[in-house]
């Protein structure tokens, strides 16, 4: 949703904006730090990696491009940690086979996802059907025994939560679709096989840590758009499937 621009509105806004800006009360950024969007990285004893700079970059972009209020500093947690429930957006970046997750962790994660939490499984292994992929699928089946992980269709709300995107892109671009488990109006668990965080990660010098193949910088840009969409989707669920949005986008020719 963007504000509607009219010529009259722009003129009146421009005339009054400069004067009003100095008079407006200073904005708070949400009421308290706890309500700002912050990313929780789940860490296991092996098979996972941490990419705080990737998430910092992502939330910086979310702040720049959207109205969402964020705290860009990620927090690292174990799946059993009760503090997980203070951070409804979580990620797990995998590089290889995951150790067996405890039943207590599965129970907590299941509750977390069932009551509004969101988990993004990012496969950084570079392999489409590697050890992490198998581990991620096994974890998903333990979390949702009756709901298999399935490819998200092209018209899924995640693909239009903020940007219009056609297909997933990360450090690689081999998978044709994101996968996820759907519960009612939202898919609380989403799996990406193309190392999204790898495309966003930066080194201490501020340079990109990994080359992006095969698309180069254009693909990295697409990865950033996917990251922004993930955050927005976790906050708006299937909002972009509401009839008002679909009709308007179709009317403008941006959707078929």
């Amino acid at each position, binding site marked *: *949703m*963007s*504000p*509607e*621009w*009219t010529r*009259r*509105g*722009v003129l*009146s*806004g421009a005339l009054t904006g400069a004067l009003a800006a100095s008079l*407006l*009360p200073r*904005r*708070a*950024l*949400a*009421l*308290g*730090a*706890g*309500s700002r*969007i912050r990313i929780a990285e789940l860490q296991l004893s092996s098979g996972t990696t941490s990419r705080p700079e990737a998430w910092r970059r992502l939330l910086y*972009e979310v702040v*720049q*491009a*959207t*109205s*969402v*209020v964020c705290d860009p500093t990620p927090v690292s947690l174990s799946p059993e940690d*009760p503090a997980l*429930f*203070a951070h*409804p957006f979580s990620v797990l970046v995998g590089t290889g086979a995951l150790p067996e997750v405890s039943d207590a962790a599965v129970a907590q994660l299941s*509750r*977390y996802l069932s*009551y*509004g*939490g969101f988990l993004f499984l990012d496969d950084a292994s570079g392999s489409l059907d590697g050890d992490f992929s198998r581990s991620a699928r096994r974890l998903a089946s333990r979390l949702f025994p009756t709901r298999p992980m399935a490819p998200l269709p092209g018209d899924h709300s995640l693909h239009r*939560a*903020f*940007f*219009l995107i056609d297909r997933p892109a990360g450090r690689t671009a081999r998978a044709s679709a994101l996968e996820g488990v759907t519960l*009612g*109006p*939202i898919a609380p668990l989403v799996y990406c096989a193309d190392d999204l965080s790898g495309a966003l990660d930066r080194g201490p010098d501020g340079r990109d840590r990994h080359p992006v193949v095969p698309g180069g910088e254009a693909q990295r840009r697409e990865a950033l758009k996917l990251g922004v969409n993930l955050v*927005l989707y976790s*906050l*708006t*669920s299937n*909002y*972009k499937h*509401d009839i*008002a*949005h679909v009709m*308007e*986008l179709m009317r*403008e020719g*941006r*959707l078929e």
Partner: protein
Amino acid sequence: MSLLLGEGLGSQGELSFTLGPATLTALVVAGVLAWLLAWWTGRQAPSGWLRRGELLCWALALGVLVFALAGPVWTEEEGRIEEGRLVVLVDGSASMAVRESGEARAEQVEEILALLGPDVDLYSFDEELRPGAPTSYTGRGSDLGLAISTLADRYLGQELRGVVLISDGIDRGPLSEDLQAARESGGDLDGLLPPLGGPLTVYQVGGEQRIRDSAVEDVLSGGFAFLRTDVSLRAVVRGQPGATLEVSLSREGRVVESKPVLLDAEGRGEVGFTVRPVRVGRFAYEVSIPVEEDDAVPGNNRFPVVLRVVRDRVRVLQVSGSPSYDTSSLRLFLKEDPSVDLVSFFILRTQEDMMSGWSSEELSLIAFPYERLFSEELQTFDLVIFQNFDYRPYFSWGSESLLENIATYVEEGGAFVMTGGDRSFDLGQYAGTPLSRVLPVQLGATGPTSDETPFRPVLTPAGRAHPLTRQGATDAETDAIWQRLPEMDGYNIVAGLAPDSATLLAHPSATVGGAPAPILAVREHGRGRSMALMVDSSWRWSFSEAAEGRGNQAYLRFWKNALRWLMADPEDQRVTVSPSRENVLVGEELRIVVRARDAGYLPLEGERIVGTILSPAGETTPFELDTDASGEAVVLFQGQEQGAHRVEARLSSSSTIRGESVFAVTDRDPELVELEARPQLLRDLAAAAGDASGYRGPGDRSGPLLDADAGRERLDRRVRSLSAVPLVGLLFGLLASAAWWMRRRAGAR
């Protein structure tokens, strides 16, 4: 001879006995045994003519006795011819009481009956046939066909001197349609009436001059409507052909709209009124037309009707200035509730975000249709939620009028919620706007406008009693749940509580104007309701509770209670009043169910309910009942007065826990809808009865057609008992005495 046999015993008759064959046989056997006893006891006597004479006399005496005890009956039959009856049928329906030229039609009936004389079989009819003259002319609907058929059955096979029908020809039965159809198709009218056994004479009363009566014949409403959806009320009116009638629609006694209606050549017209109900419940409307001085039936010039307004689904508009965990949780709750029709608008990008280097072609954003939403579409919503939404950057044009629209919407029955955040309340610069006048909190705080120190809200005394903040079955349970719910991240500071508002949750330590700072406040303003939640972290009531394994019940219950309270549906009150029908006829029994629920909305058993039914004229019918196991008490009521009746009921233990409803009583006597006499029907009726029939128009007092030869054979039957005939007693006495004399003479004892 008659001395011996009794009076009137003829020679042409038939003897029979009243005793059955078995009893008769037993009696004969007893007689034989008695004769043998006489023979046995006299066997010592020498035989001779005396002995033989004695036994003969005993045999004859016993024979006479057996004959007398057997119940002999003498039956004689004699036939004679009697003159045929004159049968008179008088229409006793309400239309016969209509006055024409100052005289009721029924008064002409007396003249005609006097003409016919006293020797008649008189019947009256409306929906059924009754012997005798009408006691009053109040019958609902006359059925000429049924009356004639019943009469034909009753006199089946008899020759009648004549049949007379006295009526105005207003028929509500199928016969009139049959006659009309046969006449219009050129068919034969014969066969439409059963054989009557005599010539039919039809006397028409009324119709000498045209009746002046205007009426609202019907109002078609369907009985119910959906909230905020146009519904049409169509009224059918009648009056003088070519005249223009001013038809008015009133609601709760106030005229809503009036429209002129030009009546057609038949004197009929239709008019439609469109209403858009903005509240749920039952509402009384009335369609009326003016009453002229010479109006024959003023009572049919108004037609009350009650419309039941129901909510299809709760239509919610959620507007969020910034997607957050709070907006996400509320959207998921509303989206998953099948009783909610949710329209969400999230501001995903502000003007400040537009310099971030992304082209609009890459974005899936649409324009925020704020002008349409907050003007023409606003009335289609039951609830509007501003969730951390600041209007200024988006209402680029007409912000004052759009906020005024929202305030008016609340005052006219809508519901509004504002939740906290860095774009809400004073931070959203709503102070001094029209919207501030409907909020339950006062804006314009002079100091800081937010506080980011975590805190746990506390229940106020008002919150402990209010259904919105109820979390458990008991007060203690509700208290315990609120005390264990997680801390909030911060809150919006306001200048205080608005008039006529209540703080349900307060800050545990901060105060405003000496009172605890409101965290959750509610207000009933005009016909609508508003709620202010000063935090943007209510999502923690769901998520943190789930972390403890307690699910998200506290969050769901809070928002479900909020929706229920904000909607203010009569069906969701603790005492509800539900008439079984919205519209009933005068005298028709209506079942009114009063339901009582406790604070947790569970049925209240054994609760005393007191209430009244208020008629249009102000007459009250009180009632007092106890609820059953399902929390229900039933009142049965028969309305006798036309118009809207209001029912009020409350718990006897509380003056505030109450409910009310309304129903309409209609006096739609079909006899009084069409008042003009129908001579054509009466002519057709006479024609259908065959050649030997006649029609007497208004004022025609010539005598009825009579069949002078009509008569019937009457069979007189006389039955006489012979047991008490003097001859029987005399014979028995003589024979028994002779037998006894001869027995003694013969020497027997």
